[in-house]
């Protein structure tokens, strides 16, 4: 015990309900328009109200379009109703809504930390599987179902079965050109998509301590692909500096930091499982199949063997085929995994002065309005559009197919997102997930490319260099 997870779990336990199930206090609830209206309306229909409405936030991110000049109209048939109903339900419930054209609108898991809605030591839930992203600040954050969202709204609590604990310790340093995304894919490739099932995962070690806050979000984001209950990184000076001064940061900052400093696993802490990884051995990774665990070092070859036959067939690949130089149709940088400022800046450092290969559709979707503004202040939008990228409004966009926009059947896409499932980005679309650098380099080359062979442009190195190195 006395792991960071157990500290947070026990501190929020209101009542032990037996059989390892506790009634946990929930500090923050995030909703989005894909499921938000149904949770709020169904609560209202039973005559109930939200118990702490100032701790509940709703965001428009999943269904809203990301085309410039967008409004409530959506390319997803019937999508507008989700937006207008969520807006009406949020107003009726009296919760804070980051509406379509709010300057701070964006992907839930990007805007929540940006506004310091999530803080170290809090519990936060959202009806979205990538809520684990937010554990990177040292919060207990996990994804829930619709009925649970209603329960949390009405009672400020959830019934939770205590998961097992796992620590993944990454020693040493990541090599130049290797990012948190590569680390996440490396862990998935080594331990499988079910490697974390039933466990709360804490990432620790020298390589994790050296990650910038944005890279920590990327790492924790993909814990759900690992099957984990939630992901955690102990908060430290990097966390505190990053959160300071943000909109909902505590007014009495010193008191808060004093409360957060002890939030770490004790030296004597015992985890149910421990995994050790040598950070210096991690290489740039890319997925070849239809599960994030079907990933390889970028210079690897598609596995032979019966096990991968269905994935190979879907992806249009042959056993033993190298991934490098495979022609692509599209490149996508965005999603709650890799859409923050340093992600875009590192991609820009590779694109700088180059052009997207002809015939390749390349799209950049900043994770939030704030990321977009900050990128534009650095001139990244011009750099990308001059190279031939589309520069979008923030949102989930083509991270997932909601019935509207898609890349098309059999189109090969290199994507900075988190899921390469069949038809995730559109019916029949073939997705390879990788770091923003790999996506940018591949967009330029028109083929899957190793970003390390692209010499990063100097002017952006100061922004880009800090984030993952």
């Amino acid at each position, binding site marked *: 015990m006395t792991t960071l997870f157990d500290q947070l779990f026990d501190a929020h336990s209101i009542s032990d309900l037996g059989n390892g199930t506790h009634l946990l206090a929930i500090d923050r609830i995030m909703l989005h328009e894909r499921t938000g209206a*149904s949770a709020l309306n169904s609560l209202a229909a*039973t005559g109930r*109200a939200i118990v702490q409405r*100032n*701790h509940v936030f709703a965001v428009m991110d999943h269904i809203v379009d990301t085309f410039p000049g967008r409004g409530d109209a959506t390319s997803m048939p019937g999508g507008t109703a989700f937006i207008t109903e969520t807006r009406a339900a949020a107003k009726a419930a009296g919760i804070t809504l980051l509406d379509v054209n709010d300057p701070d609108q964006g992907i839930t898991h990007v805007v929540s930390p940006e506004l310091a809605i999530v803080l170290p030591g809090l519990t936060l839930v959202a009806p979205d599987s990538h809520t684990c992203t937010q554990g990177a600040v040292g919060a207990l954050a996990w994804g829930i179902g619709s009925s649970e969202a209603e*329960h949390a709204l009405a009672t400020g*609590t959830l019934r939770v079965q205590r998961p097992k604990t796992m620590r993944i310790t990454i020693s040493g340093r990541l090599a130049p050109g290797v990012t948190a995304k590569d680390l996440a894919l490396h862990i998935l490739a080594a331990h499988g998509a079910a490697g974390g099932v039933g466990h709360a995962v804490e990432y620790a070690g020298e390589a994790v301590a050296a990650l910038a806050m944005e890279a920590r979000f990327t790492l924790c984001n993909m814990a759900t692909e690992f099957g984990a209950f939630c992901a955690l990184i102990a908060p430290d000076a990097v966390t505190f500096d990053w959160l300071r001064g943000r909109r909902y940061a505590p007014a009495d900052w010193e008191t*808060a930091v004093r*409360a957060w400093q002890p939030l770490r696993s004790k030296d004597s802490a015992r985890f149910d499982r421990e995994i050790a990884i040598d950070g210096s051995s991690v290489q740039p990774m890319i997925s070849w199949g239809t599960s994030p665990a079907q990933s390889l070092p970028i210079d690897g070859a598609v596995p032979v063997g019966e096990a991968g036959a269905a994935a190979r067939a879907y992806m249009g690949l042959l056993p033993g085929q190298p991934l490098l130089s495979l022609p692509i149709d599209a490149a996508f940088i965005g999603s709650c995994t890799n859409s923050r400022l340093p992600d875009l800046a590192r991609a820009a450092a590779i694109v700088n002065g180059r052009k997207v290969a002809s015939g390749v559709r390349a799209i950049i979707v900043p994770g939030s309005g704030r990321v977009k503004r900050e990128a534009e202040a650095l001139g990244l939008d011009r750099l990308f559009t001059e190279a031939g990228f589309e520069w979008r409004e923030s949102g989930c966009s083509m991270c997932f197919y909601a019935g509207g926009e898609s890349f098309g059947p059999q189109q090969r896409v290199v994507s900075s997102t988190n899921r390469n499932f069949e038809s995730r980005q559109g019916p029949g679309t073939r997705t390879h997930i990788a770091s923003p650098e790999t996506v940018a380099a591949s967009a330029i080359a028109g083929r899957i490319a190793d970003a390390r062979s692209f010499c990063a442009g100097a002017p952006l190195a100061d922004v880009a260099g800090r984030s993952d190195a």
Partner: protein
Amino acid sequence: MPAAFARARRLLMLRVAVMPEPLRTLTAVAAPLLEDNIDTDIIIPSREMRSTGKTGLAAGLFANRRYRDAAARIPNPDFVLNQPAFADAQILLAGTNVGCGSSREHAAWALAEYGFRAVIAPGFNPIFFGNCVRNGIAPVVLPRETIAALTNPVTVDLEAMLVNGHSFALPDEARLMLLEGLDPIALTLKHADAIARWQSADRLARPWAWLCERATSR
């Protein structure tokens, strides 16, 4: 902090919701649909789930079986619920693995809205089982032969745990929820005092964790 405690307690107790009616003893007509693997798509086809809410679903219940033309709502006289003897059925008799397929809670919502208060089958899909309990429908497991031999009216007695004299089992919490008409929220609100106590202590212990109302108005 008695004031904060009182406020938290009051907020929690305000939620006296319109929950399922308590179900102690029910004597009603049981309609037989004795096939195995009646999935949630049969119970409510996806095109019948038109809104983001959980109401307005009763008309879509069993739509593909119940109507000759589902779009025009032209009834199929052969379907059991369209037969006069079963028009007022409140109990559904089914084959095993009832509620399999998609986890959509709409299946239970549609059954409840139509008026069903019990489903009796040799086996249930576990998610559907939980969704039934949550929505005031008793999921009763009985052997196939016992179900086939039941004669109307059927009495489901949750206090004695008997159906027309045949005993059945139900987990304690599920039974409590059905007997008292509680959904999981109402069940949790039985801890309202503990929740309110925790919250008023937490406001003192972690003032930084609490956003004041003013902070959210923009």
